[in-house]
């Protein structure tokens, strides 16, 4: 890969949850901010998300989960990424996630959780600071 590569981000919808307003807005805001963005579309399993992340050589995976299944889906994606030797891909996310669940998710490898009401600018700034180009 050339030196001029841009940061690539996979925005994913894991599980059966169909709420995609937030995911699509974040995908579009990150694209408008100059990142390369891939959006999975709905209803992906953790395996499918990890496979796409690896195939597409992304630097970060952002997951949106509003179905209450976050305590299963986030750690599962983190585990599978590590298992496939891609543990350096940054994981972040958002959705309907109670504050008391956030710490557990961070311990399991999620770098940041954004709560409802977060401005897109805040997410963009965070990505700029926390996601670096991986060594491919």
């Amino acid at each position, binding site marked *: 890969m050339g030196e001029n590569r841009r940061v690539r981000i996979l*925005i994913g919808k894991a599980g059966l949850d*169909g709420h995609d307003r937030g995911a*699509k807005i974040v995908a*579009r805001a990150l694209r408008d901010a100059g990142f390369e963005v891939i959006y999975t*579309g709905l209803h992906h*399993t953790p395996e499918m998300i990890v496979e796409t992340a690896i195939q597409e050589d992304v630097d970060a995976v952002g997951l949106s989960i509003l179905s209450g*299944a976050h305590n299963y889906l986030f750690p599962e994606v983190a585990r599978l990424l590590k298992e496939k030797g891609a543990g350096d891909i940054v994981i972040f996310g958002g959705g309907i996630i109670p*504050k008391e669940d956030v710490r557990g998710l961070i311990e399991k490898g999620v770098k940041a959780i954004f709560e409802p009401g977060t*401005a897109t600018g805040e997410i963009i700034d965070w990505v700029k600071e926390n996601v670096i180009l991986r060594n491919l």
Partner: protein
Amino acid sequence: MIYERRELDRLKEKRETWEKENKNLSRREVRFTTVSGMEVPSLATPDILDSFDYLSDLGFPGFYPFTRGIYNTMYQGRLWTMRQFAGFGSPEDTNQRFKFLLEQGQTGLSTAFDMPTLMGYDCDHPRAMGEVGKEGVSVSSLADMEALFEGIRLDEVTTSMTINCTASIILAMYLVVAEKQGVSWDKLDGTIQNDMLKEFIAQREWICPPRPSVKIVVDMIEFCTRQVPKWHPVSISGYHIREAGSTAVQELAFTIADGVGYVQECIERGLRVDDFAPQLSFFFNVHNDFLEEVAKFRSARRMWARIMRERFGAKDPKSCMLRTHAQTAGCSLTAQQPLNNIVRVAIQALAAVLGGAQSLHTNSMDETLALPSEEAVTVALRTQQIIAEESGVVNSIDPLGGSYVIEALTNQIEKEAFDYIKRIDDLGGIVKAIDVGFPQKEIADAAYRYQREQDLGEKVIVGVNKYTYKEERPLSLLRIDDVVDGSQKERLIKIKSKRDNESVKKHLRTVADAAREGKNLMPFIIDAVREYATVGEISDVFREVYGVYRDPGYF
């Protein structure tokens, strides 16, 4: 016309003079537009209504075009149904919540199902991992449905069930539960959402592609028209369209376009419009913008009445009535300073009532954080009871009717929504419009615009981008036990070992054959669930015969 031409002209002149005088007065630096971005007249006077005609544009409650309400006596005859959506965990958990709500004075049940049930997977499917009972109640087989309604006579409640691509299976189970209680189907009253078109546009739960999905919806309308006459076999829903980020006009336009789509399909099936149209019902969102929302409900009724009479030749006034459920806007609630949500919900609920809704769900203050706690649900229900019993707004029918600004907005929303309907007709109807992603893209654009306005502070969200706190006081939230997962699976294993598996297989084959032959599937699905065939097994038949729809992933 209410006013003489000459009088209107004189008024217009006076208004223009008044406007000139105001021109140089300073105004606050905010945009005076609705939450959807619609311009609102800063002062409405009769001249802006121009050719407004009382009898043909408003008429009387209970009469065409139903702008002022679908019933003669409206809330003096009967209050709206207070219907709080509930469902979580196991069928037993939800059954308890149902009984609690009925004891609190709620008048109808409303069922939320979990994601696996909604998407056609049993609780033991790998895709159900982590989701069983989380966003609603888990139902895999008739045994779960029996537990869900245990001790509740189905001829004594009206039940609403929010389910779509697996609606045919769940309705079949409900009918069999009734049968087992000795309640005949003609006594059953309630609604099943079953609006697949809006799934592709907004809510996004599906199994098969749009065409077979609509075919099953029409099967259910046809079946209910003949066998479950009081049931509402589809609730044409704008709620999710709005939640996905649409404007008020888009919500109305795409919902009415979906309605037009179903009516057309039913007519093509050979049904007579006046035989099924009286059982169609609607479901709209109520967002923050009070005037816009009141107007939207009034426009919706008038549009539907005009379409049913003028486009489809309906003769029965009941076919022209837009009956609607309303729910306050989940997307308007904030995780920050959640107590403020009580106020938002109260304003929205008041708009729904002044808009003339037939039933209402008020959201709970904690829903951006988790499923609602019992305390939060109670406050939400009390909000409706206060509007009904204390506020006095029920004393006069359509009390905002005749307000110049409300009538102006009602006209404007109707006009803009009809423009969208025209564009959809030009694309070849709603299914084709969905195939090319037209409504999906319009909504995604509106959602992004709204978010930008919020990020830039052009639209204020109290507690989020203005008047914020550094430290938030936490609420105590409802937690869903992970044990549900295990207990649901155990019940399913037990059912599968007890039932007549040969008979189940035979019935599943019959459903598949009926699907291939294009027959109405309902009778076959009912026979299959009676034998305890599961949601997942019947959904697999749909997948096998009709194929699976994949999200094109527009953003």
